[in-house]
């Protein structure tokens, strides 16, 4: 009996071995080009990645340390903050006065600004004395300075005043040497719009204004977005793009903004982004023993892989009783053995599909250029984002939002780079807080992943509106 059993077993083994020993199957054409791609990438990729990451990291470190250095200097010497208010009358004229010899601090400041400012400051000092004498609370004095149409103060040495971003359309900010600030109100309702009225106050009254000159700010954003993907390549992908569509998702994060000069700013930070797509119209049925399926042209589909191929990689189902078949016009999920009844019910609903979601951690680096400002400051921005794939979960569409993915996407590159550009509208809420609204377009620089056996390459892109506030440190 034992002997017969051994013989039978060997017969079985041998029969299968005989049939499959010399099995030769021509692989799909695309495999070689995929291998070629990988051989090409092998030669280039490591350098590409390391250099870019090293550059991004170095720049970020440089940015942060430069900002901290600048920032600490700013606060260790907050000596004088000068400010101005709008003028309703326009009759006053500039009158030169001599320096007050008893105040050395005043001399120091005034000497670097110019005669008109000297005049203003001396006026202030004498007014203060008068005010004290009169026991009045007033510590300020008004002084009209001629200005140019662009808002620059006309003083003999006005070129040393560095114009900073305005707080509003009618407040201009100028930076003096040693980090002192002049705020000049250019009143749009004034009878003489080309003239500025300047009041110089004691620094303690307006310390907040001096802080507005910081080059560093932090911002938080939330960006609802429409996530699409673009396919590039030749040859049939084996499934129709019409079976896939965009999804609504979001991005969020924190940024540090560093002002290089009057026009240019650099921004970096850390973000979280979700992109993905919907895989529509999936037919489903169940069968206990996996009967062969028939495709539209009548051929039997013998293979029931547990992986569905989409233009964003492949989907592997967590439930081992879910199988998948790809026929020309639709995708079919078959269920076998013991399966979750609720999944069948959901799959059988009309229009059921899957949602592929990809969560990315983002390290952005962007530059922005101030185009113009009129109440709202408008910037053009562009940059690059290094992305790291956190997860690629797959959900049943009718089960969203759910914490219960039915599978995950495979074949997606862990690292990628995204190009980003757009406009940024910035509106001051207070002297430190700004409201930001940034319509932005992003697109992957490199294909999303090695979508095996496909020559098509998928580049996700999205339209979004970054909304948030920034806070000047």
């Amino acid at each position, binding site marked *: 009996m034992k002997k*017969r059993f051994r013989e*039978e077993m060997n017969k*079985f083994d041998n029969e299968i071995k005989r*049939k*499959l020993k010399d099995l030769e199957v021509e692989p799909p054409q695309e495999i070689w080009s995929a291998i070629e791609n990988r051989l090409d990438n092998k030669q280039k990729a490591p350098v590409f990645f390391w250099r870019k990451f090293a550059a991004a990291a170095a720049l970020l470190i440089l940015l942060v340390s430069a900002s901290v250095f600048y920032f600490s200097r700013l606060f260790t010497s907050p000596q004088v903050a000068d400010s101005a208010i709008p003028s309703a009358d326009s009759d006053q004229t500039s009158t030169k006065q001599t320096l007050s010899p008893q105040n050395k601090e005043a001399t120091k400041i005034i000497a670097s600004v110019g005669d008109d400012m000297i005049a203003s400051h001396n006026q202030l000092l004498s007014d203060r004395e008068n005010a004290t004498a009169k026991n009045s609370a007033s510590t300020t004095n008004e002084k009209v300075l001629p200005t140019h149409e662009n808002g620059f103060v006309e003083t003999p040495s006005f070129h040393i005043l560095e114009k900073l971003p305005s707080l509003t359309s009618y407040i201009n900010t100028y930076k003096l040497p040693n980090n002192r600030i002049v705020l000049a109100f250019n009143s749009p309702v004034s009878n003489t719009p080309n003239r500025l009225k300047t009041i110089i106050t004691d620094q303690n009254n307006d310390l907040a204004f001096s802080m507005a000159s910081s080059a560093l700010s932090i911002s938080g954003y939330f960006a609802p977005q429409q996530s699409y993907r673009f396919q590039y390549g030749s040859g049939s992908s084996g499934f129709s793009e019409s079976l896939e569509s965009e999804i609504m998702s979001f991005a969020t994060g924190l940024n540090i903004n560093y002002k290089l000069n009057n026009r240019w700013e650099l921004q970096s930070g850390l973000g979280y982004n979700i992109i993905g797509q919907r895989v529509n119209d999936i037919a489903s049925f169940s069968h206990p023993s996996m009967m062969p399926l028939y495709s539209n042209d009548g051929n039997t589909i*013998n293979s029931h*892989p547990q*992986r569905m191929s989409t233009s964003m990689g492949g989907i592997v189902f967590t439930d081992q009783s879910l199988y998948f078949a790809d026929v020309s016009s639709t995708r079919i999920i078959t269920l076998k053995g013991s399966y979750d009844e609720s999944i069948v019910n959901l799959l059988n609903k009309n229009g059921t599909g899957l949602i592929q979601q990809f969560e990315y951690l983002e390290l952005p680096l962007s530059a922005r250029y101030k185009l113009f400002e009129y109440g709202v400051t408008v910037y053009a921005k562009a940059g690059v984002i290094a992305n790291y794939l956190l997860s690629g979960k797959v959900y049943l569409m009718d089960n969203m939002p759910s914490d219960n993915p039915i599978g995950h996407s495979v074949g997606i590159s862990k690292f990628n780079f995204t190009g980003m550009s757009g406009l940024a509208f910035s509106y001051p809420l207070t002297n430190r807080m700004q409201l930001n609204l940034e319509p932005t377009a992003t697109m992957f620089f490199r294909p999303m992943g090695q979508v095996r056996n496909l020559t098509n390459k998928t580049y996700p892109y999205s339209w979004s509106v970054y909304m948030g506030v920034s806070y000047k440190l």
Partner: protein
Amino acid sequence: MDKLQEIVDGCLENKRQSQSELYKLFAAKMYGVCLRYAGNNFDAQDILQDGFVKVFENLSNFKWNGSLEGWMKRIFINQALDRFRSKITHLSVDEMEENLELTDKEASALDSLSEKEILNLIQELPDQYRLVFNLYVMEGIQHQDIAKELNIGVSTSRSNLARAKNILKEKIEIQTNWIEKAI
């Protein structure tokens, strides 16, 4: 042999033309191997890609002591094992009740199945059973060595093989009945 040597030399110099020729020579055979070890065509294609990239990277280690085909096949098998190694359970499994007597009807059914049909049956086996089945039946590797390779117990390897065969037998039975009904 000279021609093959020439192709290998070209590959070692990173010549794309030679790499393409080596691929054309062995792709169909190696894809056959990959299909046996993988559960589906997608996995097989992944293994084929990964395997060829490994072959090109490690070709300098091939010393012409054996056949190039044998050396390559080993790389593809290793690649397949690597892919499924994470799915292998290390728990020992109860010894399987062995019931492998083939009736004449089943024997003839097995005989009448095409290569493709048998391949499909093997592909539908659970990953671990499929690996053990391939290593034992197709490559002739003994259970002690399979156990070491997959980091499982010898008894688990035996039991996996028996289960794999039982499943195959059941499927062949279903196919046989189905064919009979169809007739």
